């Protein structure tokens, strides 16, 4: 079944100010697919702060777990009490780590409401030289595809892929593998720099299932109107 345009949008709550996060969550939570909270927020406010921010909305918990399999499974079980919709882990943790995590997520499933695990492949902060320095194969895109394939074979539900990786990952991993894409921004949103970035509609066209969008929504004068505008843009193309 195709995903509705509004459900595709995951709003990144890009502040660790608890009251501002709650206010934003309350304003946009019901109008998007879910809300993303990251490591900084989680470490500052814990599960209680996450619960208060997300309310009844769906949670994308971006913790990028990476450790030996037992430790990752333990950490995963600790946060599955939050019933996250999506949770991230580093694919570089290896096949066994991902398999065990996938089993733990399935075991904790509550009917259809199972936590979807997403692999992080190569951090966008790394380039070819960084991969070489850490003994990994270049170029970056090859390593991204290698880790995406491994994530798929190890039972993860999908991966995080930057806009310019989406099409290649989709081709590599097929139609039933989730691709979640950060770093997209609508053409109309205020830009800090003149860098060419992909729009939400373009990312969906390239094969992304879900889009993580922060500032264009959270810093808009009217966050709900910003969501509406993005939804219309995606619908116009699909």
């Amino acid at each position, binding site marked *: 079944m195709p995903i509705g345009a509004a459900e595709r949008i995951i709003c990144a709550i890009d*502040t*660790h*100010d*608890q*009251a*501002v996060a*709650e*206010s*934003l969550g309350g304003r946009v939570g019901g109008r998007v697919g879910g809300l993303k909270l990251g490591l*900084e927020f989680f*470490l*500052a406010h814990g599960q209680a702060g996450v619960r208060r921010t997300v309310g009844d909305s769906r949670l994308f918990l971006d913790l990028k777990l990476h450790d030996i399999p037992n430790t990752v499974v333990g950490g995963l079980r600790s946060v599955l009490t939050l019933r996250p919709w999506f949770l991230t882990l580093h694919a570089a943790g290896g096949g066994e780590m991902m398999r065990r995590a996938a089993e733990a997520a399935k075991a904790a499933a509550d009917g259809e409401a199972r936590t979807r695990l997403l692999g992080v492949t190569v951090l966008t902060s790394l380039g070819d030289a960084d991969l070489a320095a850490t003994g990994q194969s270049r170029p970056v895109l090859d390593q991204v595809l290698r880790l995406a394939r491994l994530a798929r074979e190890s039972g993860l539900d999908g991966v995080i892929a930057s806009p310019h990786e989406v099409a290649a990952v989709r081709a590599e991993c097929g139609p039933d593998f989730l691709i979640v894409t950060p770093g997209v921004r609508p053409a109309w949103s*205020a830009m*800090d720099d003149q860098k060419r970035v992909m729009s939400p509609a373009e990312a969906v066209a390239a094969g992304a299932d879900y889009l993580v969008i922060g*500032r264009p929504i959270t*810093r808009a*004068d*009217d966050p709900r109107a910003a969501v509406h505008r993005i939804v219309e843009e995606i619908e116009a193309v699909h």
Partner: protein
Amino acid sequence: MSIETKICGVNARAALDAAIGGGASLVGFVFYPPSPRSLTPEEAAPLARAAGSAVVRVGLFVDPTDDELDRTIGKVPLDLLQLHGKESPDRVGAIRRRFGIPVMKAIPVAVATDLAVAADYFDVADRLLFDAKPPKDLKNALPGGNAVSFDWRLLAGRTWPLPWMLSGGLHADNLAEAVRITGASAVDVSSGVEERPGRKDPARIGAFLTAARRIG
């Protein structure tokens, strides 16, 4: 639910440590040279970096230009901009868009009609701060931090679409009453935790935060 506390005008490491150690949710750095609490960006940077993500780091500005904000934000990591001057709603929105940092607008309050102004900021601010309007007869009054309160009953029973904070003349001994009357879930203190204007007292910071915890 516990009361959120903001210790404003932090300008020394001992005060910062007392605020974080005592459980403050926010700390404020003042970038307004007429204030005895004012810091240069160079002075504030190590304090803000030391605070890290343990608290929300607030930069207090009074009618700042983009240049001033650029200079400060370029050097000092800030999580929230407190606009404590006569910034119009358009200006508040423009600052929020330009810098991509959430904004708290201070609303000076003396009489009931002063509260009506807040509505103009609902769409452009992320938080509101109700502070006592500087007394007309006070010489060299600052936009805030004058150790005066407004009539807390003005806020009784009111609800706001944004998170809001109570400020103005609070200290450890009147905090419980202020919260009881206003229903505030967040409070801001500066002069009430100082031994003299501009000099924070770690012991008073600790006492204030303890008083806030007892309420929550």
